[in-house]
């Protein structure tokens, strides 16, 4: 089990709209949210939290380009330099016949690369166990969490008060 060495104060909401409202309010009050956990991708959550757009697609484009160049380049090298053979009266450099494999490698590189990148940057993978706050977060609870490791008692009270006022059904702290 991994650990973040954090003390976390969190509130569980029963409805995603209550949670979204609370997030907007918290941001308006300049309360720093550590993280938000939901059972499914809530639409509009990125904007409410002010998350920057994911750049995963850029990595995908780069992996794909590498795959395309590698595939096409490799076949060209094999058939024009390393071991030129004429098949079925085609020229050594028979570009149309290289397209299918080039395409497959483009897709393969882009997909595998992106998936590996995704798990790496999210800190996930086979056998990895990240700490969770509550088992019901993957079921039907929406959780807003504040980092209170170095927070003063007054700050913590303020956060607790905020969670209470914004409709959190349950409030708790946990060391993870």
């Amino acid at each position, binding site marked *: 089990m*991994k650990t973040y060495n954090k003390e976390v104060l969190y509130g569980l909401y029963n409805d995603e*709209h209550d949670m*979204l409202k609370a997030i907007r309010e918290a941001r308006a009050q300049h309360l720093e949210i550590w*993280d*938000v*956990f*939901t*059972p*499914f*991708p*809530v*639409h*509009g*959550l*990125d904007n409410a939290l002010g*998350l920057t757009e*994911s750049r*995963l697609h850029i990595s*995908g484009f780069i992996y*794909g380009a590498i795959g395309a160049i590698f595939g096409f380049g*490799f*076949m060209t090298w*094999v*058939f024009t330099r*390393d*071991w030129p*053979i004429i*098949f*079925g009266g*085609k020229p050594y450099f028979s570009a149309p*016949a290289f397209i*299918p*494999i080039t*395409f*497959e*490698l483009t*897709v*393969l590189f*882009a*997909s*595998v690369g*992106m998936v590996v990148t*995704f*798990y790496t940057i*999210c*800190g*996930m*993978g*086979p056998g*990895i*166990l*990240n*700490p*969770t706050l509550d*088992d*019901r*977060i*993957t*079921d*039907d609870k929406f959780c807003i969490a504040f980092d209170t490791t170095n927070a003063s008692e007054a700050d913590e009270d303020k956060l607790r008060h905020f969670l209470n006022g914004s409709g959190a059904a349950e409030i708790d702290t946990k060391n993870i």
Partner: protein
Amino acid sequence: MSASVSPIRNPLVTGNKSYHDITEDICSPTERTPTPAWVLTFILAVAGLALYVFCVGWTIYVGIGSWNLNRTIGWGWDITNFVWWVGIGHAGTLISAILLLFRQKWRTGVNRAAEAMTIFAVMCAGQFPLIHMGRLWLGFFIFPYPNTRGPLWVNFNSPLLWDVFAITTYFTVSLLFWYTGLVPDFATVRDRAKGVRRRLYNFLSFGWTGSAKHWQRWESLSLILAGLATPLVLSVHTIVSFDFATSVIPGWHTTIFPPYFVAGAIFSGFAMVQTLMLITRKVLNLQDYITLEHIESMNKVILATGTIVGVAYLTELFIAWYSGYIYEQFAFYNRVLGPYYWSYIGMMSCNVLSPQIFWWRKLRRNVMVTFVMSIFVNIGMWFERFVIIATTLARDYLPSSWSYYTPTWVEIGLFIGTLGLFGTLFMLFTRLAPVVAIAEIKSILKDGGDQYVGPEVARKKAAETTEAH
């Protein structure tokens, strides 16, 4: 905030579900002890698998001579089965990727199972090219790697090699796509489990927490993988069609093959999804998630793709005449009226004519009719591949080498055996993983579930306003 939904749309999830109900309904089949029906089906499937193992063993021990192929007909049931299975796999990617891009929200009810079906079908498909090579222990020759044979590279100009790349890429990407979708749902199962099962799902869920940033990346990843999988799925069956169409054999060499194979693949895949889901929804009590709306939508896709395939059949037939090329004309004369006329009739009636009953709404929404039709289409699409492969080969340029082909028990056993392999994997899947995508169903509940909006609410509102007037 929640999106506006037209009053004429029916709910995608029925039964007034809460988020917790969804978790409960979909996770519980993995938590209960298996039902007798499941055990019985599983035993049957494993028996099929045993038959498969035996027949593969026999083929390798005796050699390809145990099949009834001959010098004229070099491809028979083996490649027919290969193409049939690959085709079936395509519906999973279509439902999960193409329908995602087209924002057809009803896909959420069936995409998980359809993707699983894709992966298992591709596994079944992959067996046939491997064993039909005869000397299976030299199978690794198909991969390009530096070797001491020259170094002699594989023939990158050969469509058969393109197949190797296409099928392996397709399998890998489908698996990644499917598993990435499964990870949050495995986490849901994990958080309900105890003991050994908890440890198992700890491992399977990759440490998923449900953090907002992770969800954002997850959605982005799903969308791009869908964008990649869409041309990929087209390319795979296109390349399978190239196996035939790049040749100069009349009846095989025709330019319509790529899109027509893809349409046929989607057609047969949807039929297989229907066959499986009609049983699964009954056995696992998922009628609220895989509703009649879902079945009707899939039947519409079957009708549409069946008709596209019909256009292609007639195009081929017409252009064969139009070409003015006697060999092409003979190949098609032979398909319709030659020794394998019965398989052409089977293909036409199962694929083109019988799906036309789905023009009637009543029949589209009839579970029994749908089930029977789905079997019909599966049979019809098998015939289509058989027509293309065996019929074409049976009558070549030299009348002296004309031949006829019937399978041996080994070939039939192999086919039934792959059904067992497929069944075994699918039965295990229904025990281990949530068969409906939990997180995705939850995300559409508020614009597709009947407790929020839907025709009932809209109708009530309309009634109120008319009363007020």
